[in-house]
């Protein structure tokens, strides 16, 4: 037998098989994506990523800090660019003069602090990179109150395991919220920032206060923070997944990658 006689049909067969296989793979992947069982298998990748990343990194390993010359000329505002509640509009109107941050939940001494009080507290400044889940990055300079310090001042309960951030912005009438665990809450670079690039935090970036949690992706960095609540269980909040995007489109709660 000679290869010459059969190579064409073979080729045609292979091409057909490749195209058919490709189509089959695509619809198969779409079906798997919709399948709840398979989704939970893929979701176990998130737990694996969190465990592995926490295993190899020091609890307080710092995100890289940059110099002034590295700051992005334009820092892209993303997600909400303003708060959505009437209260928020009132705060903007009087330049946050009557705004107060509440720190409550599983704490011994709930706090209520206005912007002046927050700014009078010891603060941390850091020039860090903001990484969006979509793929872009921007570098900005932030100054704010270390979250760990506020939690200590409020006397965090030993039962508390998470910190939830309640925000003034919303999507489709659902209020934005986010949450982190205590490892990130007490990380030295985790701050509630009231200043960006040397000025007061602009409205489109979350005025008067936004979270910086530097080892995670952008959607964890809650803007328009109104209230910080310590809790033992994220199931108690909204959709139960620990954040607006986590509830709405199944984003990973741990966004270190």
């Amino acid at each position: 037998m000679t290869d010459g006689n059969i190579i064409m049909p073979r080729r045609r067969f292979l091409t057909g098989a490749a195209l058919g296989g490709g189509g089959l793979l695509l619809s198969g992947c779409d079906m798997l994506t919709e399948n709840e069982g398979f989704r939970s298998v893929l979701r176990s990748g998130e737990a694996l990523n969190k465990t592995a990343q926490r295993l190899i990194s020091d609890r307080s390993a710092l995100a890289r800090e940059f110099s002034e010359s590295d700051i992005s000329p334009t820092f892209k505002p993303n997600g909400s660019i303003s708060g959505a509640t009437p209260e928020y509009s009132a705060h903007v109107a009087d330049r946050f003069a009557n705004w107060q941050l509440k720190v409550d939940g599983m704490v011994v001494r709930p706090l209520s602090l206005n912007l002046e009080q927050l700014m009078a507290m010891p603060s941390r400044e850091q020039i860090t990179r903001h990484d969006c889940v979509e793929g872009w990055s921007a570098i900005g300079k932030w100054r704010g109150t270390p979250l760990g310090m506020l939690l200590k001042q409020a006397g965090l309960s030993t039962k508390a395991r998470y910190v939830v951030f309640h925000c003034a912005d919303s999507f489709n009438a659902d209020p934005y919220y986010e949450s982190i665990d205590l490892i990130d809450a007490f990380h030295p670079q985790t701050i509630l920032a009231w200043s960006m690039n040397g000025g007061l935090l602009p409205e489109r970036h979350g005025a008067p206060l936004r979270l910086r949690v530097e080892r995670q992706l952008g959607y964890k960095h809650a803007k328009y923070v109104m209230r910080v609540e310590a809790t033992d269980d994220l199931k108690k909040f909204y959709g139960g997944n620990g954040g607006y995007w986590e509830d709405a489109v199944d984003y990973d709660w741990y966004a270190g990658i």
Partner: protein
Amino acid sequence: MTTSDATTADEPLQPGDVIKRHRLSTRIWHWLNALTLLVLLMSGLMIFNAHPRLYWGEYGANADPAWLVIDDAGDTGFVEFAGTRLETTGVFGIWNDAEGEVRRRAFPYWITIPSNYDLQAGRRWHLSFAWILSLALAFYMIRSLWNGHVKNDLHIRKTEWSPRHIWHDIKEHARLRLPTGAAARNYNILQKISYIGVIFVLLPLMILTGLTMSPAMDAAWPWLLDIFGGRQSARSIHFICAFALVAFFFVHIVMVVLAGPINEIRSMITGKYKLPGKVETELTEGEGVRP
């Protein structure tokens, strides 16, 4: 029966002889990798669709200069490379989905996982299969060092490095004259360079640049940012290496087809490989030819 194990054969190998070609570890890794890389490519293109621009340096967003952009303007889809626009309407930037709906995304539905725009599902697929890729690669590297695959099959010997030898091999490939008989038993220099390039350069680069895009990894291993020159550079290198792997795939498929697809594919399934070339004796003809 023709010689089945070259190492015990006294007679020189002839075209038509069936030899043991690929180890079990190579065969398993090959097919697992084929599937894994396909899923990673397609889910990666979905993730790329969320921000179809590439930059150099530490930062990069819409206002910053991008060296590669896939976008749409009006009714035109385009790929912009280093400032030069190429119209790609219907394929990249703007295309119709399976239902005929006009979509304005970089890569079309038929090449992404999932086929509808879903960043989070794409990330789930990508980040889960990245584990399979990394663990399988680590296992295969160690196994290949251990079982002599690297030393005996992939190692490029001194004589092979001579420019004359390499040039000769390039000319032979360009004329589509592939080695036959005993000469086809071992990988040639171009094969070795390709396989070493994939296993020890491209795939590790894919994994490391992928990790560099993780903010938690950058805190844990800040040297990642130093070797790649920042997160956005790492993202660009990730994309370039992915397309180098795609290029490898197409050349690989062409070579398999030219070298005899049935024999080649069979050798990667069963491990047995019929040495190509004109079979001279009646005795060997018909043996080991049947797929």
